[in-house]
C-alpha cells in the first residue's frame, strides 16, 4: 500500500514539475506568426509547385503578407490558382488584386519522328539532362526535343504527356497551370510559358533551332530556317528573327495567321482556331473575327 502511494506521489510531482517547465518554456519561446499567413495559405492550392517563384505555398503566403504590408500585391501571382485565388488572397489582406493574363506552356518543337530522322541512338540513363550533357541527342538537331520526358516528370498537374507517335510532349491546356516547372526542367529551354491569348488562340513558331538555315533543313523538315518571310508578311511587327530563329511576340500578335500561311517550312502553328473553310468557295473569312485590321487571307493568290 505504502509503496503504491510513494510511487503515485513521486510520479505525480515529476509530472507537475515537467508541466510547469513546459508551460514556462512555451511562454518564453513562443513564435509569433502573423495569423494572416495561415489564412492566405488556406486559400492557396497547396500543390507546393514553386511556380510562383517561392519555396512552396507557405513561402508564397509569407511573401503576400509582406507585400501587403508594403502596400501592393503587384508581381505576385499564383499561376495554379490564377485570378480567383489571387482575389481571395487580396480579400484576406484587404487589398485589390492585380489583373493578370492567363498563360500556358507551349512546346516549341515539332520535330516528330518523320520530320526529324534519328542519326544516333542513346542508351544511357533515360533523362534529357543526361543526354544533353553527353551530346546533341539522337537527331542532328542540337536544339530540339530530346524526348526522354524530363518535363513530363516535372509536371505536378498531369498536364504533360509524351505522344508515342511523335515522340514529343503534348500539353493538356485544361490542366496546365503555367507554373513553369516543365520549362525549368527542359535542358534545352524548348518549353515557353506563353500568354494564352484571345479565346485561347495562339500563333507560335514551333521551333527552337538556332543553326543556320541550311543546317537546320538537313536536320529537320519543319525547322525554322530564318528566311524572314514571316517578318515581311506580318503587319504588326510582332515577329522578330534573332539568332536564326523567328519569334512571335504574343502581346503584339493579332492572330491574323498570315505568317502561318507564309512559312515555307510549316514551322508556324496556330492553336485552337476553328477549321478553315476551303479557299475556293469562301476566301473571305478563314477565322471569325480574329482581330481588327485583318485583311482576308488572299496572300496565297499573290
Amino acid at each position, binding site marked *: 500500500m505504502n509503496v503504491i502511494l510513494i510511487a503515485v506521489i513521486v510520479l505525480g510531482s515529476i509530472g507537475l514539475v515537467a508541466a510547469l517547465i513546459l508551460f514556462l518554456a512555451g511562454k518564453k519561446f513562443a513564435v509569433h506568426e502573423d495569423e494572416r499567413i495561415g489564412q492566405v495559405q488556406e486559400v492557396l492550392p497547396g500543390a507546393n509547385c514553386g511556380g510562383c517563384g517561392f519555396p512552396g505555398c507557405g513561402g508564397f503566403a509569407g511573401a503576400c503578407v509582406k507585400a501587403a504590408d508594403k502596400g501592393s500585391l503587384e508581381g505576385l501571382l499564383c499561376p495554379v490558382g490564377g485570378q480567383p485565388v489571387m482575389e481571395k488572397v487580396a480579400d484576406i489582406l484587404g487589398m485589390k488584386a492585380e489583373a493578370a493574363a492567363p498563360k500556358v506552356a507551349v512546346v516549341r518543337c515539332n520535330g516528330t519522328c518523320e520530320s526529324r530522322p534519328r*542519326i*544516333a541512338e542513346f*542508351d*544511357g*540513363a533515360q*533523362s534529357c*539532362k*543526361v543526354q544533353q*550533357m*553527353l*551530346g*546533341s*541527342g539522337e537527331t*542532328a538537331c*542540337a536544339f530540339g526535343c530530346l524526348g526522354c520526358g524530363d518535363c513530363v516528370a516535372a509536371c505536378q498537374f498531369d498536364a504533360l504527356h509524351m505522344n508515342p507517335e511523335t515522340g514529343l510532349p503534348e500539353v493538356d491546356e485544361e490542366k496546365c497551370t503555367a507554373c513553369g516547372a516543365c520549362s525549368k526542367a527542359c535542358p534545352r529551354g524548348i518549353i515557353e510559358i506563353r500568354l494564352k491569348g484571345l479565346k485561347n488562340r495562339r500563333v507560335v513558331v514551333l521551333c527552337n533551332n538556332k*543553326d543556320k538555315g541550311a*543546317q537546320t533543313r538537313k536536320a529537320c523538315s519543319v525547322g525554322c530556317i530564318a528566311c524572314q518571310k514571316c517578318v515581311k508578311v506580318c503587319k504588326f511587327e510582332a515577329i522578330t528573327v534573332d539568332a536564326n530563329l523567328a519569334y512571335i511576340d504574343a502581346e503584339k500578335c493579332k492572330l491574323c495567321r498570315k505568317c502561318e500561311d507564309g512559312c515555307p517550312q510549316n514551322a508556324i502553328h496556330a492553336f485552337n482556331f476553328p477549321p478553315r473553310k476551303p479557299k475556293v468557295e469562301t476566301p473571305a473569312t478563314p477565322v471569325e473575327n480574329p482581330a481588327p485590321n485583318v485583311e482576308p487571307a488572299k496572300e496565297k493568290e499573290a
Partner: protein
Amino acid sequence: MKTFRIGGVHPAENKLSAAQPIKVAALPKQAVFSMFQHIGAPAVPVVKKGDEVKVGTLLGEAGKGLSVPVFSSVSGKVNKVDAVLDSSGTRRMAVVVDVEGDEWEETIDRSDKLVTFKDLGTITAEEVVNRIKAAGIVGMGGATFPTGIKLMPPPGTKAEAIIVNAVECEPYLTADHRLMLEKPEQILVGIQLIKHAVNCPKAYIGIEMNKPDAIKLLTDLLKEKAAQYPGIEVVPLKVKYPQGGEKQLIDAVIGRQVPAPPALPINVGAIVQNVGTVYAIYEAVTKNKPLIERIITVTGKSVKNPSNFLARIGTPMQQLIDEAGGLPEDTGKIIGGGPMMGRALMSLEVPVTKGSSGLLLMTEKESRRGEVSPCIRCAKCVSACPMGLEPYLLASYTRLKDWDGCEKNDVTSCIECGSCAFTCPSNRPLLDNIRVAKQTVMGIIKARHMESITKK
C-alpha cells in the same frame, strides 16, 4: 608495388596496338581547327577566309582568362571561319583550311637532332613557361587544361615533386607507351625543362607494370646518363584503373592525398604532367614548334590494323580509320578516347583535337549497355570509387533532385572515371546521374559565390 589507396577497378587491358610503332598519318585534304580544344575560354580566330597559312601559323589567339592559342598544322588556304560540328554534336567556332603542299613556318626547327638541356644555355624559368604558353600546349592525357597555367604555382604554394603521368590506365590506348619507347631522351629533356620552370629538384615518372619495356628502357637510360639527368626516378606502379587520375597518381607515387576541391595538387606540392605533354613541351621549347600534332591510337577488336598514328591536329577521324584498315562492318559505337572515360562520337567528320588520345571502334555487341535492374545494395560501387564517394547514394540524390545532399556527400570530388558504373552488377547508369549532379552542384556553388561577391 606502389598504387593508390582507395578503390579502383581492373578492366581488361586489351592493349592491341602496343607493339605497333608510331606511323606518320597522311596529310588530310581539309583540316578543321576547333577554337574549343581546351578547358576555359575559347580561342579567338585571327585569320579570315582566303588567307594563306603555313604549318605553325597562328589561327586563333588565346581568349580572355584561362585559354591557349591554336595553330595551323597544315599549309594552305583558309576555306571558312564558321561553326562546325564537333565531337559532342554541337556546332562550335572553328577554322577550316584546304590543304595545299606542306610548307612550314621558318621559325620551326624540323630536324630530329636531340637538343639537350645544356644546349639551351642559360634559359630562364620564365622563358620556358612563356614558350609553353605561346605554343598552345594543354594537358594531352585528355583533360586539356592549359599547361602554362599549371606551371605557375599560385603564391603560397611550392612544387616539391613533378610527377610525369605515363600510366595510361585506360584499356586499349597505347599512344603514351609508344612515345616513351620511341622518344625517351626527348621526354627526359622535357622533364628537365619542367623542373627548371617550377624550380623543383625532384621528378618521378609513374609507369604501370603492364609496360615493362618502357620501365626498363627509361630506368637503364637514367642509370647510364645519371649525371645528365639528375633527380629523375622511374616509379613502377601496380596495374589499377584509374591510376592515371591526377589525384590517384599523386597518392600512388608520393603517398600524399589531395583534399577535396577547391584544393589542387599543388596544395600538396605536386605537379602532374602527362608524358605526351612533356614531349610537346620539349618540342615547343627546344624546336620552337607549337602544338600541331599528337599521337593517337586507333584501335578496337574488329579493327584490321590497330595502330598508333602521329596525326596532325585537324585531321578528320574518318581518314585515320581508313588508314587503320577501314571501318569494320559490325561497328556499333565509335569512342573518342578510351573505353572508360571516352565519349561516343556523333560523326566521323570530327577532327583530331589536342585532347584526342585514342579512337576506339566497338562492335555492336560490345557497345550495348546491359539491361538496368534495381540496386541490390552490394556496395561494389562504394569499394570501387577511387575518391571514396558513395556512388549509389549520389545517384539516388540526383533522382530526387536533392542537390544539398549531393553537395554534402562531395559530389564535386567525383573525377568521372566510371569505375562505379563499370563495377555495378545491375548495370545502373550511376555515372550518368552523378555527372548531372556534379554539373548542377558546381552551378549552385558558382551562383552562391557570385552572390557573395555582389553583396560585398
